[in-house]
């Protein structure tokens, strides 16, 4: 799975593709550690599968950001991924946006 990262202003954006699972989670956690600002948007538009290790990686990233007065926000969840968030009730823990633009803009409000 490809791990593409970029910045929009102070916000670090992570684009993930395909399966987001235990094989990808360590690279994502490692990326958090290199970010200068604790404001992250994870774009899940091309993610087709997510497992518990990936959810744990996202939850860990969110906790880390919030401890530094930032946040990790999600956008563009596809139906199979949204189902997992709802099943685990993690959709109540994260701020989730329909588009990347909305997620990035939410940091400036």
């Amino acid at each position, binding site marked *: 799975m490809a791990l593409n990262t970029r910045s929009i202003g102070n916000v670090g954006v992570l684009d993930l593709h395909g399966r987001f699972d235990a094989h990808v989670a360590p690279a994502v956690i490692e990326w958090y550690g290199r970010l200068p600002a604790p404001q992250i948007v994870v774009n899940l538009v091309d993610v087709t599968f997510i497992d518990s290790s990936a959810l744990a990686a996202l939850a860990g990233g969110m*906790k880390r950001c919030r401890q530094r007065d930032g946040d990790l926000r999600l956008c563009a969840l596809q139906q199979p991924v949204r189902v997992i968030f709802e099943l685990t*009730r993690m959709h109540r823990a994260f701020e989730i946006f329909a588009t990347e633009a909305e997620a990035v803009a939410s940091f400036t409000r």
Partner: protein
Amino acid sequence: MRIAIVTPYPPSQGSLNEYAFHFIRFLRQKPEISEIFILTDRLPDDAAYPPDTVAQPGLAPLHIVPCWRFGALDNALRIVRTARSLAPDIVLFNIQFASFGSSKPSAALGLLAPAMTRAVGIPTIVLLHNIMETVDLKSAGFGANPLVERLIRTFGAITTRALLSADLLAVTIPRYVEILEHKYGATNVLLAPHGAFDEAPPPSFEPPPGPLQIMTFGKFGTYKKIEPLVEAFRLLRETRRDLELVIAGTDSPNAHGYLEAVRLANVDLAGLRFTGYVAEEDVPRIFQDAGVVVFPYTSTTGSSGVLHQAGNYGRAVVLPRLGDLAELIAEEGYTGEFFAPENAQSLAEALARLLDDPARRRAMGTQNYLAACGLPMAEVVEWYILHAQNVLTVRNARRAARRREFVKR
């Protein structure tokens, strides 16, 4: 966050004691947790719980409060009273349907505790390890005839509704979420991974030298019946002498005297060994010494702690072909050799397939180890903290809204 956890806790031998031990071991390491109260069952003869010997800076202080007794009818009242006096921010229940008693009244009345706790204003989360819809009541020691079974199912449904009045109810199998949402229209149910108990380095996948051990672990006599396993062991001993059968654990609280009766009926059988209660520090050795771990279940209740432990120690497993267990294996990435439930011949054949093939045992142990590594308990605990924080945030927001409304009037 000050949290109270209602659960059996070692050295109590109540079901789920081991899960609680590991859950709390990781929970107390989290900076969000300032204090933990374990509302646990009284030990036989009111013996005292051992002092907390691992207390140190950075770990949340642990207070063990024995306030209920397995089988008593007033457990819910006692738990609520104790919770009120301690005033935690939230109460977590680590339970299954027979946590509070082996008789129907004591089991059912105890399960009212989450609803009653919430009714007095304390937020509650229930981690329910099985649901009534998937329990084989006959095998679990309840329901002697169909009428009684139907009656129990009706009361079970009522009890489930009561449990669902908690702020959140967590289960560890996706199908349980579906059942609770469809049958009860529940909107507060969530899936939480079971979690791996130990973050141990990769184990040795080879059993130690000496007789090859077939091991089973748990609390026996209700839905874990060892007679077919002992019979299968007899069949295997006819052709191979280099085997040992280890029965590790105790009677189920619902089946006092069960293991002793089996032992007395098989005193002639060489290589059969009963360990009795296995202390926490002896658990790794018990699993590491085993060549194969057997699950002699006649039904499943959804609790998969032993399977996770077998995985942690990289052991090959032999399981009955029961719907729930097969599903669990498939969903969590485990693999095993299967046998027809309660069929000694089928079990002996399944065991022989593994005993005769060390490479297959090793491959199976490796896959189970990788499956058990899936999500460490430390991460699972983080999920519960997140859910607890959300419950508290929603409650506080509602309270603030009510205050504003009151001021307006």
